[in-house]
């Protein structure tokens, strides 16, 4: 029973198919064949173009479109394109295309074992599956797409499986994602029990309350939160992001996490008027994730782990927005809905621009120097200037600083939170305002973290020969980074540009807004923000012209070190000392492991100071728990050691028990 498919949706579906097939060429031709890799990238780009075209047409048309493609053993192949799905499709198309472009040089078929064709295959499958996730309108289809996505991601993370730490990261990810999938299976089963069908996304009856609905909410948040990486469910995230190839990390952080966000948004939309505590809980989790995530990020000594933790922070920020909109939904505060969800979704878009950019930068650094350890980098700003420029863009953007794109989304969230605290809102709601300082704190922490990266890895002088001889990557990688960088600038100078995407998404979630408003454009002075950003740029240009052009510069000298004339690279500040104060402030959560130097005697011998910050949840809670469970279960094994007589005894005993006790 396939019905007529509207053109935009059709284009998106074709795009999905194209991208899904993009990895296949590597299997018909020789694996180490760069041509097939280029073909794969071409297919990816083509698919993205088609998808983008479809989205443009959809935004023009404006109304949701559905199609039925066939049947499954249980459930149907029902897909639909509404505002929310469309918005989440954008990062998928962009990051997948640019990432595979970057991969052409970064993971060149001729230089990696096996030609990286499994990577390309899974890349296409994962992207297509993610598109399927947001398009699916049937629980079973959703689960199929979800699992395909999760498994493809597993293979992508496990690309370098010859290294044990990669295997461990992939394994942790696999367990986490499976736990999440089981939660979702239960979630959809209960949902089907509540609504009587597998259609997505249903709206439960307004008076639906009680255990069942609560269980649905809890399971949904758990399942999707595991994917999104909300604290304390983030255990898999840092390892996976750090150990995957960098463009894969970009895809994971830029897009995969967002599918979890998508699910959370949908879960909060299940009830017309959800209980207030739903939004409250989400807001709390968001604050926790944002603050702890960033605190952990500041403490990291590995570039990619730092970026991974900052992803946790960003997801936390998004969760704050979603929670706020849920609260607004339950209290009938349309403005909070618009601002909260708008901010969250805008941040989804922004984060999928600057985080991939930063991961690609990290990839270039890794490519050039072979290390991710901040303390063994340094001075890269001189040896790889273009990469440094890209990084600076990404860093300013991710700290939410004007004039780049991070600012707009945080502004929306601040407006929402401050409105919640506004004079006319009740006390219970005003507490939501308490999230604003938390948001500010994460902003400041982010600034600390990225100044640290900029200063330790890029500025100063090189600490190791690798970073002396590092060099900018080739045009392909630079092009991908440049594209993201330009997006940062564009979205920063003209955030209003994405309103046509945002407004329908919000209305898809809260249809009432469509005719009553308030519209996002009325709540937020986008024009002013653009003007100020442009003004800032002009002002900087002016100041630069005034100071630099008409003033003379003397001959370069060594850095002033209070009279010490011969500074060495080893005298520079390193990352751990840079973040020492902040780590100290958060030690109650981070619990740094320190090995202090033993200095004794008049002339103490050489000794070292080391400190590392383990993951707050994985290394402190989960692993010990599992270990103890292992120990507990071991004695049970003795049952299977017995002689055959013992085995026969079991049979005999169970009969006796059943005949005597169990009757």
């Amino acid at each position: 029973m396939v019905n007529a498919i509207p053109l935009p949706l059709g284009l998106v579906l074709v795009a999905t198919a194209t991208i899904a097939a993009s990895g296949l060429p590597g299997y018909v031709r020789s694996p180490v064949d760069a041509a097939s890799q280029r073909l794969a990238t071409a297919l990816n780009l083509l698919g993205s173009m088609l998808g983008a075209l479809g989205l443009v047409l959809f935004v023009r048309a404006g109304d949701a479109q559905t199609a039925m493609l066939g049947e499954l053993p249980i459930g149907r192949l029902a897909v639909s394109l509404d505002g929310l799905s469309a918005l989440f499709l954008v990062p998928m198309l962009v990051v997948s295309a640019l990432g595979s472009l970057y991969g052409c040089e970064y993971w060149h078929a001729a230089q990696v074992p096996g030609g990286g064709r499994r990577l390309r295959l899974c890349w296409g499958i994962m992207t297509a599956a993610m598109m399927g996730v947001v398009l699916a309108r049937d629980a079973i289809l959703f689960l199929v797409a979800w699992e395909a996505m999760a498994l493809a991601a597993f293979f992508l993370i496990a690309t370098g499986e010859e290294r044990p730490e990669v295997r461990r990261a992939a394994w942790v990810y696999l367990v986490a994602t499976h736990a999440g999938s089981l939660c979702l299976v239960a979630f959809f089963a209960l949902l089907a029990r509540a609504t009587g069908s597998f259609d997505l996304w249903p709206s439960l009856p307004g008076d639906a309350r009680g255990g069942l609905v609560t269980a649905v909410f809890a399971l949904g948040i758990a399942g999707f939160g595991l994917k999104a990486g909300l604290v304390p469910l983030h255990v898999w995230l840092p390892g996976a992001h750090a150990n995957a190839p960098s463009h894969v990390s970009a895809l994971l952080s830029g897009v995969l996490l967002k599918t979890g966000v998508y699910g959370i948004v949908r879960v909060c939309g299940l009830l017309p008027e959800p209980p207030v505590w739903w939004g409250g809980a989400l807001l709390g989790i968001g604050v926790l994730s944002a603050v702890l995530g960033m605190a952990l990020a500041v403490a990291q000594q590995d570039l990619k782990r730092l970026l991974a933790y900052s992803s946790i922070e960003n997801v936390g920020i998004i969760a704050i927005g979603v929670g706020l909109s849920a609260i607004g939904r339950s209290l009938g505060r349309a403005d909070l809905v618009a601002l909260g969800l708008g901010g969250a979704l805008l941040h989804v878009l922004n984060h999928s621009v600057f985080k991939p950019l930063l991961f690609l930068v990290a990839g270039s650094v890794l490519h050039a120097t072979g290390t991710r350890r901040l303390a063994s980098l340094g001075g890269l700003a001189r040896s790889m200037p273009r990469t440094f420029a890209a990084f600076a863009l990404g860093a300013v953007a991710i700290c939410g600083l004007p004039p780049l794109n991070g600012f707009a989304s945080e502004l929306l969230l601040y407006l929402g939170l401050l409105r919640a605290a506004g004079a006319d809102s009740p006390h219970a709601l005003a507490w939501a305002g308490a999230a604003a300082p938390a948001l500010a704190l994460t902003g400041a922490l982010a600034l600390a973290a990225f100044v640290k990266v900029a200063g330790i890895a890029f500025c100063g002088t090189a600490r190791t020969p690798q970073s002396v001889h590092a060099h900018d990557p080739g045009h392909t990688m630079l092009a991908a980074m440049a594209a993201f960088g330009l997006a940062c600038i564009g979205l920063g100078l003209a955030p209003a540009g994405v309103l046509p995407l945002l407004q329908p998404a919000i209305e898809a979630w809260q249809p009432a807004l469509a005719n009553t408003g308030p519209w996002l454009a009325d709540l937020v002075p986008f024009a002013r923000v653009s003007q100020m950003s442009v003004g800032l740029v002009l002002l900087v240009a002016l100041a630069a012209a005034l100071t630099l052009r008409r003033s003379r510069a003397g001959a370069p000298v060594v850095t002033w070190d209070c009279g010490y004339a011969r500074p060495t690279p080893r005298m520079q500040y390193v990352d751990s000392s840079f973040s020492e104060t902040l780590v100290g402030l958060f030690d109650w959560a981070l619990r740094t492991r320190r090995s202090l130097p033993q200095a004794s005697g008049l002339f103490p011998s050489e000794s070292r100071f080391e400190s590392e910050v383990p993951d707050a949840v994985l290394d402190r809670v989960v692993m010990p728990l599992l270990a103890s469970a292992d120990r507990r279960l071991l004695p049970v094994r003795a049952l299977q050691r017995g002689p055959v007589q013992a085995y026969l005894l079991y049979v005999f005993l169970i009969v006796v028990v059943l005949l005597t006790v169990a009757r």
Partner: protein
Amino acid sequence: MLRLTAVNALVVGVLLLNLFMLGTSRIRALIQAAALQGVALGVMPLLLIGHAGWYAGLIAVATVLLKGSLIPSMLRRALREAHIKREVEPLIGFVPTMLLGAAGTLLSIALASELPLEPQHRDLLVVPASFSTVVTGFLLLTTRIKAITQAIGYLVLENGIFIFGMLLVDALPFFVEIGVLLDLFVGIFVVSIIIHHINREFASLDTRRLAALKE
């Protein structure tokens, strides 16, 4: 009436054989007892079914033949080939096993009394006997070490079940009975082959040697 007493007498004999099997320390004697039980089982249907149908007789013959002579001889051969001590080695002593056997008998009588019997079986001891024989089989299986004694335990277990089959001898069609007997025969046959191999591989029938596979 006379038939009933005769049957009950046989049944009591079977019960005594059970205790003896639990008590004896010589494998040969064990095999003899099992064979004797088999013969008793063979006779039983003739007594139970008044109108001695042609196939009741046939079953009786088959039973006596298999349980009484063929299978025991196979076991004896296995015993002969395996040059081992002729003693039964119990995991727990003989006396405890006998006590357990007695307890099992009591338990089975209790269980049997719970289950309502058809009028024509009311005053028969067949059901408790079959249960206690089954229990005996289990005891032999679980408390004896040598592979061959376990085989005998299995035989006794089957005997117990067979005793219960007496009650349905006219309900069960002919060649199911035969099939059951045949299966038992083949089973013991295969078991004795395996015993042969165990003896060849391990130079003993001590099942405690069979402990390589475990967690």
